[in-house]
């Protein structure tokens, strides 16, 4: 069984003095780049970056740079859930971000991120409480549905990959157009149902229920939001909470060694809810601006 590779301070190359400086700064609410503990780095969103996909977006959070693309393909609903479509989330870490990601080196982190995203965005096994409603992907019960493949690529990493990926997926879904489908009644209604996929008409995906992910990283006695990789290397534990527009928690992941007192976790959740409001507003306005910029382009 392989040991989980942690982002150790040695890998990021921090001296004892630097470590103390970062920890001290966080304790005094003044981080290395001048931010307060609960401030996000500037978010930059660009949509429609992958023209051949149904929807796509590129999000830069400081130096963290990720791309998310959404592809819709026709498929068959699962036998256990004939009234739902399927959503798959897959993350890949490019070696351009980190030399250790070459060949299979990035697999562990990719899997961890994919599963954390699925947990935050796709709800329970029955599909209940999902940020992306699988019932909206149904075309014909038991026969035809949309399979949504959400593929993400991490190009550059400076910490807080999960939040950036969550934001990128939300932006990509806002940019996604699902073709309108006409179901032709088949003569023998056994397995195949013929569908006419429109080339012209597209339905915009409804993203009002899609949550954002807020990761709180505990360094020393305080938590910070949107940690850089330097700050992440000093963390004792991290909790990622996905919150939607209505202030409801859609998923929770705790990562990292040190144990947390339950009251601390409850406090982190309320902090995350508070921060997520600002993040949601900022993200929505950035997505709108990006979509407008797309339309203005000839």
């Amino acid at each position, binding site marked *: 069984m392989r040991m989980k590779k942690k982002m150790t301070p040695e890998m990021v190359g921090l001296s004892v003095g630097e470590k103390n400086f970062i920890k001290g700064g966080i304790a005094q609410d003044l981080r290395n780049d001048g931010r307060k503990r609960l401030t996000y780095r500037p978010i930059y969103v660009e949509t429609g970056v992958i*023209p051949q996909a149904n929807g796509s977006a590129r999000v830069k959070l400081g130096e963290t740079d990720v791309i998310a693309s959404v592809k819709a393909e026709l498929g068959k609903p699962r036998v256990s859930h004939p009234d739902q479509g399927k959503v798959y989330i897959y993350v890949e870490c490019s070696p351009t971000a980190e030399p250790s990601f070459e060949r299979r080196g990035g697999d562990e982190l990719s899997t961890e991120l994919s599963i954390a995203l699925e947990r935050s965005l796709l709800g329970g096994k029955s599909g209940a409480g999902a940020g992306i409603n699988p019932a909206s992907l149904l075309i014909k019960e038991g026969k035809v549905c949309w399979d949504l493949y959400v593929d993400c690529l991490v190009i*550059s990493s400076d910490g807080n990959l999960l939040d950036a990926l969550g934001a990128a997926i939300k932006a990509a879904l806002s940019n996604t157009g699902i073709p309108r489908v006409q179901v032709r009644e088949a003569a023998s209604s056994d397995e195949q149902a013929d569908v006419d996929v429109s080339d012209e008409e597209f339905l915009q995906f409804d993203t009002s229920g899609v949550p954002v992910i807020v990761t709180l990283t505990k360094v020393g006695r305080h938590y910070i939001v949107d940690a850089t990789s330097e700050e992440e290397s000093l963390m004792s534990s991290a909790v990622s909470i996905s919150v939607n527009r209505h202030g409801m928690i859609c998923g929770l992941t705790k990562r990292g060694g040190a144990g947390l007192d339950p009251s601390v976790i409850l406090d982190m959740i309320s902090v995350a809810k508070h921060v997520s409001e600002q993040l949601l507003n900022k993200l929505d306005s950035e997505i709108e601006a990006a979509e407008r910029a797309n339309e203005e382009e000839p």
Partner: protein
Amino acid sequence: MEYVNPEGLRLDGRRPMEMRQLRAEIGVVSRADGSASFEMGNTKVIAAVYGPREVQNRSQQMNDQALVRCEYSMANFSTGDRRRKTKGDRRSTEISLVIRQTMEACILTNLMPRSQIDIYVQVLQADGGTRSACINAATLALADAGIPMRDLVTSCSAGYLNSTPLLDLNYLEDSAGGADVTVGILPKLDKVTLLQMDAKLPMDIFENVMQLAVEGCKAVDSYIREILLENTKTLEIHRGV
């Protein structure tokens, strides 16, 4: 299928000797020692260079020169149909090898013994000519990393369809079944460092097509030099020169 219509226009409206639009940017991955993105029409790639740094695998260390390594990977969403295997398949392995050999030939490896230079190329969108775009991006990334090179390496492809030599094939033209000649040159030294072709061509036509590809490489070279010059001016301003 008509790849060059009677008026002499190709499927995307270009003339036979016209390249696609080039766009390059330096420094897209700040964590890397050098990085660049390169676009040729709809083909978009990012290259990142890490090095010279300590050799990770001691058994591969060379005492008189640097070790150059390369990995080519394609994003899931880079091709029209969603791609299942992004790296490790035969095509990716071959292209990694090709890029490594091409760049190794032009890097002054003997100036950096016992070290390792890693070149990672990530394809974001593939629309024909990915090999060439990767080499061009790698050249820019190596220059951004300040790694000493004999010359820039630039690459371009050309083909032959409907009895016409065509410069810089896109995916549709590449899949048409005609010849696809990829050339990589060292422009200042005027030497060919990479030459690959598939399908078959008569000898005299091959010469024309290859010459066309070399002209394309030279056009890429002048564009790359422009980009590098602009980048240097920006660096000068930041240094307060």
